[in-house]
């Protein structure tokens, strides 16, 4: 029992390494893959792993949101786009070599700067201890929701004017984003429409309309041309049939 009784306080680290490795690995997959659907697939996995990191950092709601909106919604949309804009096999869309070289140099330098920044501060670099119970307390979604409606629970203790008037929340941005989403919804639906529809004579839908138009005409002509075998007197054929009358 001695062996297993040794506390292993590295769960967070273990899962961090796991999720970070998958996120970055599949990020590379996105970059290096040539097949668009595979790129999308790798992006899903990368974003999913990032959601895992969010969970790990205590942002449960944001993590679930990431899964729901990003992975569930955006990616399906993206795959739709991929399928609707299917490419012919002979169209070559490989990256030029000079692009690769340039992008690697610029990207590498950018990464250096960012990493330097990330590990630059002693405050950020030093891990801080937290108890299990404290972790649980940070995972509340309610304060988040309240903040979106304009109430900052976590700053209730502070007695600034903004707090006292209940103005410290994110109500305004929330409303702006809502309206923005609505506008985007309408705009995207409008943009994706084909505008050529009305005058495309060889369009299939026009042909269907034409078909219906012709059919309606036919029905009109029907009576004139006496094509229908008219209702014969059934009784003439069947003298016994008295209940039917024409």
């Amino acid at each position, binding site marked *: *029992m001695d062996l*297993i*009784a*040794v*506390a*292993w306080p590295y*769960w967070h680290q273990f899962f961090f390494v796991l999720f970070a490795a998958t996120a970055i690995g599949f990020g590379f997959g996105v970059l290096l893959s040539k*097949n668009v*659907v*595979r790129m999308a*697939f790798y992006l*899903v996995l990368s974003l*999913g792993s990032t959601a895992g990191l969010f969970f790990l950092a205590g942002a*449960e*709601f944001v993590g*679930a*949101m990431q*899964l*729901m909106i990003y*992975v*569930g*919604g955006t*990616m*399906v*949309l993206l*795959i*739709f786009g991929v*399928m609707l804009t299917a490419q012919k096999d002979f169209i070559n869309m490989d990256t030029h070599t000079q692009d690769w070289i340039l992008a690697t140099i610029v990207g590498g330098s950018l990464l250096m700067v960012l990493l330097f920044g990330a590990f630059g501060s002693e405050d950020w670099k030093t891990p801080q201890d937290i*108890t*299990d*119970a404290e972790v*649980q*307390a940070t*995972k*509340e*979604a*309610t*304060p988040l929701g*309240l903040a979106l409606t304009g*109430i900052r*629970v976590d700053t*209730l*203790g502070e*007695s600034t004017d903004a707090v*006292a008037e*209940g103005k410290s929340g994110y109500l305004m941005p929330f409303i702006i984003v809502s309206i923005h989403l609505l506008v985007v919804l309408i705009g995207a639906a409008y943009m994706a429409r084909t505008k050529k529809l009305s005058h495309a004579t060889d369009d299939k839908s026009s042909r269907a309309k034409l078909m219906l138009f012709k059919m309606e005409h036919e029905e009109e002509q029907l009576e004139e041309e006496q094509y229908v075998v008219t209702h014969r007197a059934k009784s003439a054929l069947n003298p016994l049939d008295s209940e039917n009358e024409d």
Partner: protein
Amino acid sequence: MADFIDYLFGIDDSWFSYLVAALVAAVLILHVVAVGALLFIWMERKISGRIQDRLGPTRVGGKFGWLQTLADGIKLIAKEDITPDLADRFLFKIAPYIGLAASYAAFIALPFADGVVGQHLNTAVFFVLAVLGLEVFSVILAGYASGSKWSLFGAMREAAQVVSYEVPLGMCVVVPVMICGTMNLTTIANMQSGFFTNWLVFNDPFTFLTAIIYFTCATAGVNRAPFDLAEAESELVAGFHTEYSGLRWSLFFMAEYSSMFIVSALASILFFGGPHGPIPIADILGLLPTENLGSGSAQAFNENADGFFAAMNVQVMIARVLGVGNLILKGVIGVTLMMWIRWSFPRLRIDQVMTMCLKYCVPLAAIGFIGATAWQYLDLPTGNALVDAPRYEHHEMWTDGLSKNESDVEAEAEAVESVEEVQTPHANDKVTDASSVTVKTVPVSVEKGGDQ
């Protein structure tokens, strides 16, 4: 559960107990998925057989052919795993696993009874929906990677359908969340304890409407008839799984049946009381230490007794087994209903499915949401008022400070701070610790103590 293993082996906070706890939870959930699929496929055969005036399987496994699915499973495992020439081999092979993993992962946050849950999440409702939404990926990838036009058709249909139906589904789920004021499934379930009039479906007419819309959208969301367009055999041969065979094919079915169960179980938790039966048997038999909770309400389960074993109380354990049975029974009833629908109705057309979603489900869900909000706001009588069974009250203290005078704010803030010191659920695992706190004033974090 980790605490229980710690207790069992006399160790403290070991990685071993966490690992074992996680493994046990994972295996138990896997059983729900795998054995559930076996059971449901057998059920589907028997039910469809009875509906269609025939017997269904009768021989394998003695009576009722109850081992038929297992025999078929063995056959499927033994079958050759074919990959078509034109397939994108990697995506083709990996697609079924994604679907299964998604529907399996959704079980993590599903509470089978109070404390019997893989992982307590404060955003459990959201998590389950989000993870279930990932299942559509397996279908899209399978359809694309098969290199077959029928599969691609199936995938496109499924993608369009599932993405559309997530909207009304989400709106329906918001209604119980709004009434209960939490996204924690355990709390939502516990707020419906007591007699069945406490169930949210009977809360007001609008929740009733919402429950119906939810079930419709959930049926569409898991691709069951009459919304099973992605695998419409008369149009698309077999839709997205046309090219699959053997084990990979059966994985799609396991995913389908387990998501059927999970949406039914979610419906039962959100609207039909979850682990609480129509009559609070455990409460009436006195299996639960209700006196500890003070208010004398029909509180069936003691939330503070955290985890299945943590309470170390046989009576509570029996009550929880009852709760698990209740939830599974309700889930199975939901699945049976879906089967009944499937074998009775023809299939809709893709434009009709979309019309139904956008023209009927979304507006109705919106009406349900607005109506339920208004009902709450106007404080109109709810279902539980009919039999004078007061609902267990879920009360959060977050905003109490705002309702007070400005002079009280500071004092209140101190109170909040002091409450936060109490927020140590694992330290307070014992049942008796809750005795000092009445329901009305229990801060939310203590109520929702995390498992493991």
